[in-house]
């Protein structure tokens, strides 16, 4: 297992290096100038040049890259051009908020998809399958910015029972009941498409499993569908779900950018969005690289869990 993990690491490092180059280049290719955002609309060209110099933007592009990547490797993320303050503090605060949102959305998606998938396989009624299919299709077809706005309009404006956005004023742990209310709408909005994808794959995997010879034999011996699904088929279908979950987690982080904007959730998505708009190069570079790193780690983790669950993979990987 250790050798399997070790074998996966070099490709992850290469991906991260290439990603750092790509992110840095793309940011420099985007038209616009952070010095202008700082200088304001009535600045003179001389003031802008002075600001550009103070930000180190008058150096050559390779020199800027080497300086940045060197600092990142020593965990000195620098200061935000626009917001002031250490980027590490900004990232930690934003990452914490995004982790709470994405984590609760992921949990919600896993729980909902498990319930729905098991239900449609244990009770293969046509109406139940149709209802779940329609819900799945709607969840995938409606983009986050539509479901988000709809949820806010219904549950925050028309029937004002939940907050329309923001994070709990006193922090997450001070009042768990209040925290839960702040989390419901953004988590649900973010979880819906993930739930749909997981449900579709998991229910199909369960159905495939239920057609296996050992299941037919067990049914002939009088084992109930319930016991077969929950005690055997589900375990065998979980690797499929894990693979999809890994991919969906990446999509979920991408979706968080929109959901955070709709629900004024101060996570890394909002930070990236604002950073790009105002050309806050160091913040955006760090956040994009962090996103790639998280994605790479999730894929790595998925592979490891996959290998743990299915020995053929780790044996084949040697």
């Amino acid at each position, binding site marked *: 297992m250790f050798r399997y993990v070790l074998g996966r690491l070099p490709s992850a490092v290469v991906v991260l290096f290439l990603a750092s180059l790509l992110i840095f280049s793309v940011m420099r290719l985007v*038209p*616009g100038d952070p010095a*202008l*955002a*700082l*200088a*304001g*609309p*009535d*600045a003179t*060209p*001389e*003031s*802008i040049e002075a*600001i550009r110099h*103070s930000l180190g933007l008058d150096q050559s592009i390779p020199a800027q890259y080497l300086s940045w990547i060197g600092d990142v490797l020593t965990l000195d993320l620098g200061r*935000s051009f626009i*917001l*002031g*303050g250490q980027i590490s*503090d*900004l990232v930690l*605060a*934003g990452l914490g*908020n995004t982790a709470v949102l994405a984590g609760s959305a992921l949990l919600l998606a896993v*729980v*909902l998809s498990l*319930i729905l998938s*098991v239900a449609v396989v244990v009770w293969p009624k046509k109406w139940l399958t149709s209802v779940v299919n329609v819900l799945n299709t709607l969840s995938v077809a409606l983009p986050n910015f539509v479901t988000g*706005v709809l949820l*806010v*309009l219904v549950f*925050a*404006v028309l029937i*004002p*029972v*939940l*907050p*329309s956005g923001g994070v709990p004023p006193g922090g997450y742990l001070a009042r768990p*009941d*209040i925290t839960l*209310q702040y989390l*419901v709408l953004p988590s649900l909005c973010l979880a819906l498409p993930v739930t749909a994808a997981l449900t579709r794959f998991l229910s199909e995997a369960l159905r495939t499993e239920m057609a296996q010879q050992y299941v037919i034999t067990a049914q002939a*011996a*009088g*084992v109930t569908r*319930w016991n*077969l699904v*929950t*005690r*055997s088929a589900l375990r065998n279908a979980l690797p499929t779900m894990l693979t999809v979950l890994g991919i969906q987690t990446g999509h979920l982080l991408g979706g968080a950018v929109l959901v955070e*904007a*709709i629900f*004024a959730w*101060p996570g890394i998505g*909002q*930070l990236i969005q*604002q950073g790009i*708009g*105002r050309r806050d190069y160091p913040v955006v570079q760090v956040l994009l690289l962090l996103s790639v790193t998280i994605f790479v780690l999730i894929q790595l983790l998925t592979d490891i869990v996959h290998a743990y669950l299915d020995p053929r993979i780790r044996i084949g990987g040697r």
Partner: protein
Amino acid sequence: MNSSFPTAGLDRRAFFRGSAIAALAILGTGSLAACSSAVGEQRSDAGESVDPVRGGTLTLAIPDDVTPSALLTSTTIAGITISGLVFETLTRYPLDSVVPQPLLAKDWKLSDDGLTLTLNLRDDVTFHSGRPFTSADAEFSLRTYADPKFSAQLRSTAAAISGYDSSDPNKLVLTLAHRTGNIFDLLDLAPIFDSETFDKAVTGESFIGTGPFVFASRTPNSSISFDRNPNYWVAERPFLDRVEARIVPDSQARLTSLKSGQVALVAPGSLTFRDSQTVGKTDGFETTALDGAELQTYIGANVTAEGLTDVRTRKAVAYAIDRERIMSEVYRDAGYAVNLPWPKSSPAYDAAKNSTYARDVAKARALVSEVGTLPTIPLTYTGASPDFEAAAQIVQANLAEAGIRVELDPVEATIFFKQLIGAEFKGLWLTSHTFAQYIPSTLTVSAYPFNAAHNASKFSSPAYSAAADAAWQQPDGSSDAAKKLYADLSTQLLDELFLIEIGVVVQQVSAASTVRDLSWTKGRQPQFANTFLA
């Protein structure tokens, strides 16, 4: 046979129990609101009183976070909010005139030659740190304002101060290099910083001023909080205990935050005019116009671009634009059409001159015919702004009627500013400017589009420069003598038309009806010392 299958797993009862718990957790969270509601707690500050009452937290939505190092350019609403709540200035204009009123300066005297301004300062003011405010702090603040690295808009006026005398802690004597008609604009706009903690303001760590509210905390990209200043020099003020500014970048989210009661106020200019109008007609909410703190929407012209070098083309544009339609459809009648930048409260306002280019498509067509064949002219604007998008489309249609083909060129705000400052527009551009609500000469010496020395239109004219300088150096900016000079300046603007004004736009602020006595400065900085929750 069952024993051959794994036994560690869910049984049917556990599945149902788990599903029920999950369903309850998901769907029942709303019912928690009945006993402990996040929404209810947000609204708990509101009572029913209409008399000023002490206490409560005012929550407002702002679109962006502060850029601390750009605090003096006031380009973000967060920066303006901090400036208005935490800091004060030496003098303050009322909203309806440019006659300075005392604030941190009790009174003042301008010498007969207009070159020395003596300001007597209040002696009962302390910074939030507890340190007394002195003339040295005023000198530090004005010197900081003049520092080119901060790009403050009235830097040229601050730079005209050639000497400071702050030997008396309660008196500041300013020596001016030349007569400066807009010196009180500077004193109205330049925040007075605590010289000992200014470095922390630039990094965003702390903001120490003398204002009615004390900076309490800032969570970047999330919120900025302010507490009541218990030692404020105005007795019994402010009424509010706390102001909390929440950063809500999305316009639609700001609207729903207000409608759902999560915030009681949305900062001026943070909703579209259509949304502001709708909110104003909704029970429980009010939309107020910020008269005296106007913006001006205009079309700029690069006078060196092909097709725009001939002033007749620019005049054709001025005649062709349907200003009334733009003011009505885009700005929902929150303002009025003009040909010159000055709002009605300005000493330079001239109703007659404002009809110089009343819409006349036939005249526009005739001028285009005189000029001959014109190329397609790009019209650049900030695409993210629904107001500019709508205005640009109307302008395109108007100019097409006059025979001028326009290609819309929506760009990002950052790129737009780059083109504005770098004078890189390829043809026309559409945006708004401010500062016309101050002493008129401020516009021509400080606002970049109008700057006689260098501007985005690449326009230069000795006559315009002379008129701008003459107006600037008139000591009393609202005197009759000054008005004559402004008339000359207006004539130059109308004749040259490097900037074609569309209308004066009065910003709107939408709030819950429970928020009373809201006030702003001419620079749209919130003045919440008298604000209370009814």
